[in-house]
């Protein structure tokens, strides 16, 4: 590159940066739903004539408007006055909801499940084999008992192709958290938004993932008493360690550095009540035991999976322990899920347990867009429709501690808003417009681009690579 072209390039970059920095001041006009993203600038956005599910105290407005300014909702109600500079989007009577929140996903930390280079949902096989805790069955590589220092925030990729695809399912927020394997402690999950980034992280250390359920179909798996012994030992070690952190490291101090101090440090927010334990268990007796442990030790518990949770609904309700449910799980896939039933969500909800939904749980990264379908299936099996919508909006906002800014269409909340082409929980419906923190998201993904590239197979005018 010679000097002149180099200079030209630099000034071109400067110009484009300047162009991006220009304040956007679009005159009021109905916008296309596929409009390019706008920064949450001073241009107000007015969504008119929506069937508004506020999921808040105002309930449902059959013909209402939502005003978005500076990324926030500034008014909700019928016949709002249109600010002179507003972009106006006519919802045409279609449903308008808060953006959906998926509890327990691996969005941003997995691109292709089986491509290890793109899979950051756990410590990775090689490391875990290298750093294994050999108290369990010998021979094969074992995962460590504790990876509590693992934190998904080190891995979140805001340019993952999974994020725009999840948005096309109306999902705007998610818990992204480590996968459960064969250990006990898996590390910190985080709350993210599904906007354009670069920083998606909304809240760190949102929950420490733990499993106290035998992993199922492998020989030589750890038994329940072993999992519990390791769990209690680790929690006790963490308490002891936190009480005398200095002495722990001193030669001849409290004990050998095992477990590693970073893993004990990672449990500090749990011990001190700032971070819940997200505990994967399904069997009713396991759930009851976890609830009792949480009560006795003043630890906040969220149950993950909980396929038999309906059997201990009163314990869960009394202890105010929420359950992250996949409402399609109804098979005795293991002896821990003999009581699995499609009625789980409805029965828990009726008993006063806080139910929040995860997308199809077999593949927690890619199926985030199935979240509304999961809620719809819960309704098909007895859960009231408005409770199911709350279970993917307001309820997870409360459980994950972001209800001050997300979860309802109410004044002062972040403007995560979805305009739907039909019943948001229906499988044939899709978003017509998605806003995250007031930014209109393009309804484009790698998948829509593949679709558009190949939709005219009979057109032989140019190779697909040029389309």
């Amino acid at each position, binding site marked *: 590159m010679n000097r002149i072209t180099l200079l030209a390039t630099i000034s071109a970059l400067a110009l484009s940066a300047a162009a991006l920095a220009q304040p956007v001041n679009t005159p009021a006009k109905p916008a296309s739903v596929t409009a390019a993203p706008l920064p949450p600038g001073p241009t107000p956005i007015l969504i008119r004539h929506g069937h508004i599910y506020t999921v808040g105290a105002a309930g449902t407005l059959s013909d209402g408007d939502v005003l978005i300014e500076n990324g926030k909702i500034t008014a909700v109600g019928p016949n709002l006055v249109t600010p002179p500079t507003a972009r106006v989007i006519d919802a045409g009577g279609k449903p308008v909801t808060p953006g959906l929140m998926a509890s327990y996903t691996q969005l941003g930390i997995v*691109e*292709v*499940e*089986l*491509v290890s280079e793109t899979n950051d949902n756990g410590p990775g096989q090689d490391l875990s084999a290298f750093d294994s805790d050999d108290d369990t069955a010998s021979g094969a590589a074992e995962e460590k008992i504790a990876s509590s220092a693992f934190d998904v925030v080190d891995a979140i990729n805001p340019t993952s192709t*999974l994020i725009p695809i999840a948005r096309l399912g109306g999902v705007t927020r998610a818990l992204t958290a480590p996968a459960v394997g064969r250990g006990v402690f898996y590390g910190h999950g985080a709350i993210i938004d599904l906007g354009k980034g670069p920083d998606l992280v909304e809240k760190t250390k949102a929950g420490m993932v733990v499993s106290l359920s035998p992993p*199922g*179909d*492998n*020989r030589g798996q750890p038994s329940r008493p072993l999992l519990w012994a390791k769990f209690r030992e680790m929690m006790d070690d963490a308490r002891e360690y936190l009480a005398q952190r200095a002495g722990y490291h001193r030669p001849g101090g409290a004990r050998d550095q095992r477990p590693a101090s970073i893993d004990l440090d990672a449990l500090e927010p749990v011990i001190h009540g700032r971070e819940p334990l997200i505990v994967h268990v399904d069997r009713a007796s396991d759930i009851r035991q976890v609830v009792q442990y949480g009560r006795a030790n003043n630890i906040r518990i969220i149950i993950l999976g909980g396929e038999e949770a309906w*059997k201990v609904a009163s314990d869960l309700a009394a202890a105010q322990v929420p359950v992250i449910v996949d409402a*399609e*799980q*109804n*098979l*005795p*896939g*293991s*002896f821990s*899920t*003999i*009581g*699995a*039933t*499609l*009625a789980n969500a409805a029965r828990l909800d009726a008993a006063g347990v806080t139910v929040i939904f995860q997308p*199809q749980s*077999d*593949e927690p*990264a*890619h*199926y985030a*867009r*199935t979240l509304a*379908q999961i809620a*719809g*299936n819960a*309704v*098909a099996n007895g859960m009231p429709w408005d409770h199911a919508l709350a279970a993917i909006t307001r309820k997870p906002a409360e459980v994950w501690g972001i209800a001050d800014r997300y979860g309802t269409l109410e004044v002062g909340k972040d403007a995560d808003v979805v305009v739907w082409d039909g019943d948001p*929980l*229906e*499988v*044939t*419906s*899709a978003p017509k417009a998605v806003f995250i923190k007031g930014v209109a998201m393009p309804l484009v993904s790698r*998948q*829509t681009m*593949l*679709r558009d590239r*190949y*939709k005219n*197979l*009979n057109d032989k005018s140019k190779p*697909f690579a040029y389309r």
Partner: protein
Amino acid sequence: MEPRGGLPAWGAAAIVAVTLLLSWLLLPGGHDTSGDGAKVADQFPNDEFPSTYKPLASKPTLIKNATILTGTDQEIAHGSILIENGKITAVGTDLQPPADVRVIDGSGKFVTPGIIDIHSHLGVYPSPSNEATQDGNEATKPATPEVRSENSVWPQDPGFSRALAGGVTALEILPGSANLIGGRSVVLKNVPSVTTQGMKFPGAPYDLKMACGENPKRVYGEKGGPQTQMGNIAGYRAAFQKAREYREKWRKYWKAKKAGKPGDEPDRDIGLETLALVLDKVIPVQMHCYRGDQMATMIDVSKEFGFRIAAFHHATEAYKVADLLKKNDTCAVMWADWWGFKMEAYDAIPEGIAMVDHAGACAMIHSDDPLGVQRLNQEVAIAMAAGRRMGYPITRAHAVEWMTRNPAKALGILDKVGTLEKGKMADVVLWDGDPFSVYTHAEKVFIDGALLYDRKDPRLSPRSDFELGQEENDHTGGAGQ
């Protein structure tokens, strides 16, 4: 026979008649034992585990005033369907109930053919899943044409009854995809039975399960290969070359035997016997293949050896080669929205089924999953809606074929099931609403006219032996869960 231009109709008829007469004269007992043209199909046994399925008792039933999606691209409003002696005897709008017929009012409800899941591992990877129940992959060597999924099926898998509650009346149970050649698959009626033979769909052809791509490479890459996609292709070709030689050996033997000088009978090889039946197109191939380029290569391999690929399964990239599939009369079996779990699934799109269908190729849904099989109607709804959003005018009447008619076609059982037409087996589902809504349930499921599941009657909710006596099973278990 391909139609040839210029031949008058009487000429064609005469040729057919003469051909038939010659066949009858030359082929005593219908067997061509005349030499090189010998069909191994007629020489080798092909029904060693015969079906013992007998339809359950049924009573004549008329469902009236329902919206009927016939599976033949027709939606009949206020329609009626008459079921007698296990068969569909009439479909229309103004059927009069014969005497002593059970009449079901279908007002506000829908009727469809029973759903057929062409790709299931129920019974071979059953619930509960543990080290004792992993019977789907004979992953001991890359080609195992000698094994059969029917010999692994556990009929007590509770997944069968859950699928029944989802309106599934027939399934193809395949071996898994660890192997290049995984073994024979089997078509089952979704009826409770103590034996697998008691579920076997009478008269359904066998298929051979084969697998492209990542799975065989992952399983055998460090166990002697194949390690690469080219190794996979070489593996299929080597196996079918052996089968050709095997068939030739037997043909020579039969020819000599006919001439009165049989010599020693060749050694029997059960795996090569299956592959020889594949070469003779008696057994079609169901080919697990994600990528479009790999489908094109497999079509070439099938042409080299003369076998027939009925369908590509998990065909996430079928939309890229739909024209090629149409040209070769090969179906594509897809999910609505599964994607990304491995590299070869990275390009899957929800519009895939609609795009393949739009190109005129044969498209269908499948589950490959004990949860998905319970909601194939929802999966079709997702695919239909995705297609409509890109402008295709897909009707319900058409979309229903993706889970009924088209899988029946790909399995070679369309003459028996897959549509609601007079004379077919009465495998019928009554839905309590539009089957393409998340809120709709299969309310009644009939197989060969017998009412096997009724959502409103707990006595008609089959429960496997495994579920019996488990605590609180009056609250769970059985089909309706």
